[in-house]
């Protein structure tokens, strides 16, 4: 790890000033600190957002759940509000990484980082959630732009994420044995307007699967998901799995997620 300075602003305004001055925002650090240790990342200054009260809190707003960006995975997993309003989201949070990651990692940090195998982006995208930033509101469909890339501009921070509440939803994943990131994760969410299906781990970044969405909007059953052919031509192949295997997992996990959502 290279030398750096560390700031812990107590308001969002102070955090924005530091970030505008070139500081790297630290939102739990479960990716950033590891990459700094490996010397893959060498920021000169870190601005820890952990003390910014305006970035925390979980509250119901009408038919939606608004979750502060600095909510730790553990808080989301254990929140009575999330468990009753959006149990699939609490379940996802309860299974991210390991205990240490869940105690430190935050929703905003995960979503801003947009790791192609992270869990949270699939929930945000499948829910059709809205990312509320210091500058604007961004629809999930516009937010995720592939491999570690988002619509966030320089100096723009996520304040909170607003999740519409689905009728039924569930998340299923198969962990890559070394990192415990999902090799593939599938989030299905059924709304009155139709079913949204987001896939993580399989491609260049989280994506919606239109074939599964169409079939499941017609009939929300595992059999319906099983009938969808999954094209593997755009999927990842690496030392852990082939694209064909990932395509198989999308199908199998989508079926299991639907079965789980149906209870």
């Amino acid at each position, binding site marked *: 790890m290279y030398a750096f300075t560390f700031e812990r602003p107590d308001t969002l305004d102070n955090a924005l000033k530091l970030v505008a001055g070139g500081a790297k925002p630290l939102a739990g650090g479960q990716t950033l600190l590891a990459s700094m240790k490996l010397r893959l990342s060498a920021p000169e200054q870190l601005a820890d957002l952990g003390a910014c009260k305006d970035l925390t809190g979980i509250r119901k707003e009408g038919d939606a759940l608004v979750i502060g960006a600095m909510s730790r995975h553990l808080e989301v997993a254990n929140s009575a509000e999330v468990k009753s309003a959006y149990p699939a989201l609490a379940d996802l949070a309860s299974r991210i990484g390991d205990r240490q990651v869940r105690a430190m990692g935050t929703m905003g940090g995960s979503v801003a980082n947009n790791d192609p195998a992270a869990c949270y982006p699939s929930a945000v995208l499948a829910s059709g959630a809205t990312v509320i930033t210091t500058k604007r509101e961004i629809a999930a469909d516009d937010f995720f732009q592939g491999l570690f890339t988002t619509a966030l501009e320089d100096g723009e921070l996520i304040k909170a994420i607003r999740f519409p509440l689905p009728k039924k939803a569930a998340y299923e994943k198969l962990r*890559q*044995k070394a990192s415990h990131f999902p090799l593939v994760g599938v989030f299905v969410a059924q709304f009155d307007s139709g079913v949204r299906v987001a896939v993580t781990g399989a491609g260049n970044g989280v994506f919606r699967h239109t074939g599964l969405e169409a079939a499941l909007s017609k009939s929300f059953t595992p059999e319906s998901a099983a009938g969808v052919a999954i094209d593997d031509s755009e999927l990842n192949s690496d030392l*852990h*799995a*082939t694209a064909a*295997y990932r395509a198989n997992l999308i199908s199998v996990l989508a*079926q299991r997620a639907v079965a789980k959502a149906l209870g």
Partner: protein
Amino acid sequence: MIAPDVGGGFGSKIYLYAEDVALTWGSKQINRAIKWTSDRSEAFLSDAHGRDHVSHAEMAMDKDGKFLAMRVHTDANLGAYLSTFSTAIPTILYATLLAGQYTTPQIYVEVDAWFTNTAPVDAYRGAGRPEATYLLERLVTRCGWELGLGQDEIRKRNFIREWPYQTPVALQYDIGDYEACMTRAQELAEVSGFAARKAESEKKGKLRGIGYSSYIEACGLAPSNIAGALGARAGLFEAGEVRVHPTGSVTVFTGSHSHGQGHETTFAQVVAARLGIPVENVDIVHGDTGRIPFGMGTYGSRSISVGGAAIMRALDKIEAKAKKIAAHLMEASDADIEFAGGEFTVKGTDKKIPFGQVALTAYVPHNYPLDKLEPGLNETAFYDPTNFTYPSGTYICEVEIDKGTGEVKIDRFTAVDDFGTIINPMIVEGQVHGGIVQGIGQALMENCVYDNETGQLLTGSFMDYAMPRAEDFPNFKLDTVCTPCTHNPLGTKGCGEAGAIGSPPAVINAVLDALAPLGVKDFDMPASPARVWEAMKKGATTPTQQPQEPSLTASTQGRPAA
């Protein structure tokens, strides 16, 4: 050299690394102490790796499944350059183990070693023996299936039952009871309930399989003169010094370093039991070359059988001298002195004195045979074993495979080992647990992968190199059988590597058993979900998968090519 607590070695800390030499030289040049830390990333790249064989094996049997002859060709990767034991691992520590527990009368082994672009490959927990066991136990299970015999039956029909047994591959086994291990393992594993459990799994849409492995190990490499004839440049003895203090407490200096195996406990138990003194009166010192006699270290499951034996030999000398002192004190003949339970007695009388009094007299020699005997009670012994010790056992693994994802879950794992005399059962159990975990890790997930194009190590961190976690395992069922080693003073055999040797073939045989209905006959480690799923797919389309390796008849059979 002072290295009190170095942590687990598993082989990788025995070798002479370039850094050791460079740092020692550097320190001399500037005449100052140097601190150097290897980080995790560096260790992935430059520490010696383990196990990298491609093998082709054939077994000839009679119609009853009795093994007639085995033929093996192995290509062994040594890496880019030689590490300390590189060439010994796939040769004398591999080929000599290929008789296993069986009476196969003829065994032909040919090993080609290769330089490649990988990190050096050297000893890793088991060192050649896991490679041999994996090959043989896979082959034996396959032989059973080809004849329609159970995995237990094919083994029982070929078990060695007479001792000592001279194998056709140089080793001579002193003792064992292979069927006792298997019988006990089958009981513990509740093999009789397997069919019902398989039916239960099928109801859930899962495949269940059972795998056997009956391993043999050769621990405590020996003797020095044979190793020398084979080209080794070091001795294979161990040293132990026993220093009895005037108080009757004892300090033992051993050349067998403890990497966390608990030598301080086990060795102290041996000494305390032998001298009849409380275990807390025994101190064990290791890891300081300024204090201990020249020793060889801890490797190859040798510490108790070689290091412990050296201490026993030193204790023999202590006892012999102490008896002379006791004889003098009790005015009896040396030959009439008996020693047991910490007391010296004169045969046929009620005369007795405690060990502590003899110890004090040795250092306050007022009433002492100074004309015949030096004062003091401090003895050193060097022990060079006459043979290896041969632990053995049967492991039974039961897996459940998810048909949709190919995930393999270890549902049950049973290990019954024969380690001869056991000094500390809890420490032995810990060794077996750790070994099994490493073996299952190898069978299911661990893998060093280099990029085909660039030669870069792809598994350069724990994000990509899968270390097993506690959640990957069930509780193991363990037991032991005891046939004491016939040629060392403790009857011990060595338990450090057994788990890692016996477990991989048990796991893969179980995977193959589960996948058999899909026509899968061959499978290479690791059984990661993706690889199992691919085997399930291929198995469904091509019922018989044969390895793509060229057949052995194309090889030179060990002769130079014409």
